[in-house]
């Protein structure tokens, strides 16, 4: 516009000249369109999956969800073994990751010396950056052989009276899948829990100290009870991640569409069956059925994520976008 040093002309007339307003308007619309791609993408994902699943939805109806037969040879499809596998492996992951993650978050906010907080947080963020396929590789060649020979045997010896820990041990199993997923959702559960704990007012802690509480009593009485709802939100967000986890689970869960009480038995998840069979689907109906599995997975994850966002939003103003 003006060369430096030269005095700007004194504006006359209306504050915004028409050509400039046009550029402003155009820029604003471009930005709006870019932001609206988000909404368009959600619509696109939903429509493509619904469209792909259509024939299967019409053919099998609601029974698809409860049917345990998955037989591409005779074109009979049911989603139950996969829904079961997804829910069980995610449940195992939550049982492991939530206590560990919350305890780590507590350690970081309440106990750790300030000096080592940042390095620990950094290490946990790095854990979040490890790709799923690398966890799978590590699971196959390191974690599973070790667990098969030691940890699973010990579990069977100690808790073998429970149906959960009976039956032959192959290594690849529902339990192995759950453990790998637990490792993968630990960073997000930890970091959201940390945000929540940091939002607990110090006044709460000081009041408990003033009453003569010990460090642990302060945490239990003042911090945890205050943060309970937010921690629940962190767990639900972790669940959302766990449900959709694909590669690492596919590599360690055994990929057999069975419903078994034993955690040592191989399982199969919605995401794994899509990953394994999508490019091999020979008939149209087979493909439609896989799309319907995708639709079930999408609906599950979106519902869980919306729930988590609603729970966290009221507390932290939506801190969840930051991690991964």
């Amino acid at each position, binding site marked *: *516009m003006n060369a430096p040093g030269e005095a700007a002309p004194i*504006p006359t007339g209306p504050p*915004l000249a028409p050509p*400039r307003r046009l*550029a*402003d308007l*155009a820029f*604003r619309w*471009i930005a709006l*369109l*870019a*932001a609206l*791609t*988000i909404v368009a993408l*959600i619509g696109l*994902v939903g429509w*493509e*999956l619904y469209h*792909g699943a259509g024939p299967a939805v019409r053919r099998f109806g609601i029974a698809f969800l409860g049917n345990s037969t998955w037989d591409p040879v005779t074109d009979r499809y049911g989603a139950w073994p996969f829904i079961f596998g997804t829910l069980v492996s995610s449940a195992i992951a939550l049982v492991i990751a939530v206590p*560990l993650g919350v*305890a780590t978050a507590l*350690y970081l906010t*309440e106990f*750790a010396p300030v000096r080592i907080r940042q390095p620990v947080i950094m*290490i*946990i963020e*790095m*854990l979040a*950056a*490890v*790709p*799923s396929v*690398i966890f799978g*590789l590590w699971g196959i*060649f*390191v974690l599973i052989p070790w667990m098969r020979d030691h940890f699973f045997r010990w579990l069977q010896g100690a808790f073998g009276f429970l149906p959960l820990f009976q039956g032959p041990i192959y290594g690849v199993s529902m339990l192995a899948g759950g453990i790998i997923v637990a490792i993968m959702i630990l960073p997000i559960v930890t970091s959201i829990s940390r945000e929540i704990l940091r939002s607990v007012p110090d006044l709460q802690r000081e009041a408990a100290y003033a*009453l003569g509480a*010990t460090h*642990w*009593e302060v*945490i239990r*009485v003042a911090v945890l009870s205050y943060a309970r709802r937010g921690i629940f939100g962190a767990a639900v967000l972790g669940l959302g991640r766990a449900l*959709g986890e*694909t590669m690492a689970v596919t*590599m360690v869960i055994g990929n057999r569409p069975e419903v078994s009480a034993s955690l040592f038995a191989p399982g199969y998840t919605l*995401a794994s069956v*899509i*990953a394994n069979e*999508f490019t091999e689907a020979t008939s149209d109906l087979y493909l439609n059925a*896989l*799309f319907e599995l995708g639709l079930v*997975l*999408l609906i599950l*994850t*979106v519902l*869980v*994520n919306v729930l988590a966002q609603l729970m966290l939003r009221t507390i932290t103003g*939506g801190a969840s*976008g930051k991690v*991964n």
Partner: protein
Amino acid sequence: MPAAISVHPSRGQQVWRRFKSRVMAAVMLTCALAVMAPLFLVLYNLVHEGATSLDWHFFTQLPKPTGEVGGGMANAIVGTLVLLAMAAVIGVPFGVMGGVYLAEYGSDRVNDWLRFAADVLNGIPSIVWGMVVWALLVVPLKTFSAYAGGVALGLMMIPLVMRTTEEVLVLVPQGYREAALALGIARWRTIVVIVVRTALKGIITGILVALARVAGETAPLLFTALGNNFWARSLAAPVSALPLQIYAYALSPYDDWHRQAWAGALVLMALILLTNILVRFLSRERRFA
């Protein structure tokens, strides 16, 4: 619960309570160590198994035919870089402009909904993106292609970049905008040359984080880029990528391929960790006012 804190605690009670507090502190420290352990174990095994397999051939040669020893992942390394470049072409403009809208325009209500939508989109499983892009591009083009793989990764990047861009733009002091507007600079120029310029490092950081995130994705590439044991002749042909090659080799029955899977994983992990370290270095200097 407050019953544990009685008004006149006996000496024994106090000792017990303090002891319990110590024990819980130790438990939490143990948990924190347990959470960090997998990273070190994975890194140890990657270096231990992968470093011995890394040689010049790994970076320069194509995969050998099934069962033959030797060969490398040159095509997969190039494939990953090509896919990332294509992802950036889609993810960066949409993500950054969307972030500009969220930070600079838009009413609070609309922005709340948009942010909510972006977070929901972030939560969609990556395998679902693969199916969507398969239906969108692979079916009409009648071939798996680098285009499809790049689009799948690019679409995943949009909400990531949008959220981080918005986060750094709102950190730019309001006074900068007011000063620029008071000088008679148009709103759009204020945003481009003042606001975005000031926050540029933060925006680039966000883009790098998003790239590092999608660089390791396998699931969205399975039915889009598909994988290819040779050099791709064009962007309209199937292309290999490091995660795809690692996946295929890890599940193969050959020891030599397992060895190469570890090597590939080491290269991929190094790529991602270096990006993360670069980001940390960039964001350390990110202070505005």
